[in-house]
């Protein structure tokens, strides 16, 4: 997978499989330290300490269709290739957080890729679940830090119960919204 966005999508699939209802997807770019932090935090079923240890092993999986699981090991490899690392925190019955730190100046750094397409799909293909997507850009001077956020709980409050996030007009609106969020970060 040649885009970090696809790895993020893959990790979020684990959260969905773990019956999460709410997922925080955070991407923090630090211009000063040349790092990129990606975090996926969910309220799913969580893992035991032993499962947490096993999760970075490609020969461990909870799936039943085949017996290897590559999501977390691939992300780990990508992070380590840049001199970064990953961390998995989990508590049974509470949820799991997967964080990955990348050094953006490394020649092995992946491009973030089309993260907006990933977020749009996650939200519109899973309208019953909630996502908080946050992007932060940290600069040398803290005052210049930028932040943008989409919270589906907020969108659902506006839409009410009868209109789903997968409703055609809403999908197109959200696509545009994510684009504007990105433009906002870049200015």
């Amino acid at each position: 997978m040649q885009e970090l966005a696809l790895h993020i999508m893959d990790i979020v699939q684990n959260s969905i499989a773990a019956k999460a209802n709410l997922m925080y997807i955070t991407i923090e770019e630090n211009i000063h330290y040349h790092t990129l932090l990606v975090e996926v935090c969910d309220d799913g079923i969580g893992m035991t300490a032993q499962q947490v240890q096993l999760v970075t092993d490609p020969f461990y999986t909870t799936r039943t269709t085949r017996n290897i699981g590559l999501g977390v090991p691939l992300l780990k490899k990508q992070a380590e290739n840049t001199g970064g690392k990953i961390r998995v925190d989990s508590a049974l019955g509470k949820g799991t957080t997967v964080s990955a730190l990348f050094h953006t100046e490394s020649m092995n750094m992946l491009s973030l890729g089309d993260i907006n397409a990933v977020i749009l799909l996650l939200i519109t293909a899973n309208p019953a679940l909630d996502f908080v997507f946050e992007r932060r850009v940290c600069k040398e001077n803290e005052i210049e830090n930028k932040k943008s956020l989409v919270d589906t709980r907020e969108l659902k409050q506006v839409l009410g119960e009868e209109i789903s996030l997968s409703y055609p007009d809403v999908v197109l609106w959200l696509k545009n919204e994510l684009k504007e969020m990105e433009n906002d970060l870049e200015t």
Partner: protein
Amino acid sequence: MIIVKTLAELKAIKDKVRRSVEIREHAEAETKILVGMATCGIAAGARPVLTVFVEELAKREIQNVMATQTGCMGDCQYEPVVEVISAGKEKVTYVKVTPEMAKKIVEDHIIGGNIVTEYTIGAARQ
């Protein structure tokens, strides 16, 4: 703040939808398009395929069909795999789907009601 302005736009969408008679009593989709989104599917290019389904349905204002994602269906060599499940009909499985094929599936199968036989798993296995 940008979000306040755009939430007003979202509210306008809601009001528009409410006014239209299109909204049905039962919001349950009559047809589901499932795209396999496990590691195998994503790596094989499932994301642009699901994007085509979501956006084509939105652009054409098709409301009784839902494009969604599922896990690994066990046929990783055939990814991206797409299943079309319609109430009262047999499930159709499309394999090695590209964005172009996804568009044709929307046009021929979802809108036209004709299964694109050459894209199905049955054709791929022959």
